[in-house]
C-alpha cells in the first residue's frame, strides 16, 4: 500500500514536470508544425535567467520570475525573427526547422556554458520544507510545481478555446488560407506563438531547475520526454498532452520502482512506440496538420 502511494505521488510529480515541459512545445508544434529541438535550451534559458536575476541583480522572486518569462519570450521572438520567418515557406520547412533548431540548441547551450560555466548551480528560488502524508514526505516544491503546471495548462487551454486571439491561433493551425480570409494576420500570430512558447518554457525551466539543478544541458532530458508526450497525445491537443504527461509520469514512476531508474525511460519509450504503431496520430489526436 505504502509503495503504491509512493509511486502515485512520485508519478504525479513527474507528470506535472512533464506537462510543464510539454506546454510550450505543444503550442508551436500544433500550430506551426515546428519540432523545436531547442526547446531544452529554452527551458535552460528560463532557469538561468531566474538564477542570474536573483543572484547577480539581487532581486526577489517576485521580480525574477516575470523577468525570466520576459527573457524567454524574447528568445522565442528571436527564434521567429532570425529563423522561422525566413524558412516558413520553404517546401521542406518541417525538416529544415528541425535542423535549424538543432543548431540553435548547441549554440545556446554553449553560450550558457560560456557565461555560467558547467558547474551545476542550485536554483535559489526553491522552497524548503514539506509535509507528511502518513510516512511519506512531500516537499512543498513539488506541490508548487503541480499547482503551477495545472494553472498554466488550464490558463493556456482557456485562452485557446475562449479568447479571440486563441481562436485565431487554432484557426491558423488548421488552415492558414482560411485564417487569412477571416482577416487573421497569420505572421503576427506566428510571432505571438513563438513568444508564448518561449515564455511558457521559461516558467517551466524555473520550476524544473528548482527541484534539480541548473546546468546548460538541464533541458535535454525534459525535452525528450516532452516530445514523446506531445506525440502520444497527438498534436494540437492541449489537454491531451496534460493527461498524457500524467499517464506517462505514473508509468515511469512505476517502472522506476520495478525495473530501476535506468530502465524507466526505455520502458516508457517502448510504450510510446507501441501506442504510435496502433494510433499513428496519438491517443487523442485526429488528422495531420495542414500547412497550406
Amino acid at each position, binding site marked *: 500500500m505504502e509503495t503504491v502511494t509512493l509511486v502515485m505521488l512520485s508519478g504525479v510529480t513527474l507528470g506535472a514536470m512533464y506537462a510543464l515541459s510539454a506546454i510550450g512545445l505543444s503550442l508551436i508544434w500544433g500550430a506551426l508544425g515546428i519540432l523545436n529541438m531547442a526547446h531544452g535550451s529554452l527551458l535552460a534559458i528560463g532557469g538561468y535567467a531566474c538564477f542570474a536575476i536573483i543572484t547577480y541583480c539581487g532581486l526577489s522572486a517576485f521580480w525574477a520570475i516575470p523577468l525570466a518569462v520576459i527573457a524567454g519570450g524574447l528568445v522565442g521572438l528571436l527564434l521567429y525573427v532570425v529563423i522561422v520567418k525566413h524558412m516558413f515557406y520553404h517546401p521542406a520547412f518541417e525538416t529544415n526547422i528541425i535542423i535549424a533548431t538543432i543548431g540553435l540548441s548547441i549554440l545556446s547551450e554553449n553560450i550558457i556554458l560560456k557565461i555560467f560555466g558547467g558547474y551545476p548551480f542550485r536554483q535559489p528560488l526553491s522552497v524548503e520544507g514539506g509535509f507528511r502524508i502518513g510516512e511519506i514526505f512531500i516537499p512543498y516544491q513539488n506541490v508548487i510545481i503541480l499547482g503551477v503546471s495545472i494553472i498554466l495548462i488550464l490558463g493556456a487551454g482557456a485562452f485557446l478555446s475562449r479568447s479571440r486571439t486563441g481562436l485565431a491561433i487554432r484557426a491558423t493551425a488548421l*488552415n492558414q488560407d*482560411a485564417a*487569412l*480570409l477571416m482577416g487573421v*494576420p497569420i505572421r503576427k500570430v506566428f510571432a505571438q506563438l513563438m513568444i508564448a512558447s518561449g515564455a511558457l518554457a521559461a516558467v517551466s525551466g524555473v520550476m524544473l531547475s528548482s527541484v534539480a539543478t541548473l546546468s546548460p544541458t538541464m533541458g535535454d532530458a525534459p525535452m525528450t520526454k516532452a516530445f514523446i508526450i506531445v506525440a502520444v497525445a497527438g498534436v494540437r491537443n492541449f489537454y491531451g498532452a496534460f493527461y498524457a504527461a500524467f499517464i506517462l509520469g505514473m508509468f515511469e514512476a512505476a517502472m522506476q520502482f520495478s525495473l530501476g531508474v535506468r530502465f524507466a525511460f526505455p520502458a516508457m519509450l517502448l510504450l510510446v512506440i507501441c501506442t504510435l504503431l496502433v494510433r499513428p496520430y496519438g491517443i487523442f489526436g485526429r488528422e495531420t496538420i495542414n500547412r497550406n
Partner: protein
Amino acid sequence: MNSPVLEVENLVCGYDGQAVIKDISFVLQRGSVIGLVGPNGHGKTTLLRAISGLIKISSGCVRFKGEVVSGKDANQIVEKGIVSIPQGDLIFTEMTVQENLLMGGYLPVAYARRKDRLNYVHGLFPKLKERATQIASGLSGGERRMLGVGRALMSTSELLLIDEPSLGLSPIIIDQIYDVIESLRVEGRTLLIVEENASRLMDLVDRIYVLDNGHIVWDGHGRDLMENNVLMNTYLGG
C-alpha cells in the same frame, strides 16, 4: 448610388510565372451583383484568389472604394472590407460550428457585435444553430456550405466574393443557398459570384461576364447570354 466598390484593371496573375488570368478588367458598383461564368480550369477561382490577396498578381491593379488593395496581404484586404467565401469552403475542421462562425467575425468591428451577427446568421441558417457545438468535420456537404456562407456573413463588410456556391450540392441545398444569396442582394450587398453554370445566376445578377482562357470574352445581361446559343454551346455546355 453609382459609386464603384471594386475595380479590377488589366489584371494578370497565375502560378509559377504561368499566367492564368490574362488582362481582365471590370467594375463592380455599390449594391450591384456580378456573375462570372466560364468552363472549369479557366481561371475563375484564380481571379478570386488574386483579388482576395491569396496569390500575388503579376501586373494590373485592384481598387477597393478607390484605394489600391492589390499587393497587400490577404488579411489586410479582408480588413479593408473584401470578404470571401472560398471554393471548397475551407472551414476549420477541428473547431465547432460556433467557433467557425466566431472566426468569421474575427475582425474587431464584427467581433464586438458577435451576438447580433450570430443571431442574424442563425436566422438565415437555422441548421447552424442546431449544430452549434458540433465539430465542423462531422458536417454534411450542404451543412459545410451553409457554414462557409454563414461564416462570411458574420463579418459586417458589404462586398462578398462567392466562389461556386452550388458546387457539388444537391438541388434542394442549392435552392437554399441561392435563397440566402438573393436575400443578400435585397439587403443591398455588393456581390461577385463565380459559377461554372450560368443558369442559376440569370435572374440574380445585374451583369454577367464569361471568362475563357484567362480573358473576358463576353459580357452583358443574363437574359442575353441565355439567348446567345453560340456562346452557351461554346463555353457553358448548353
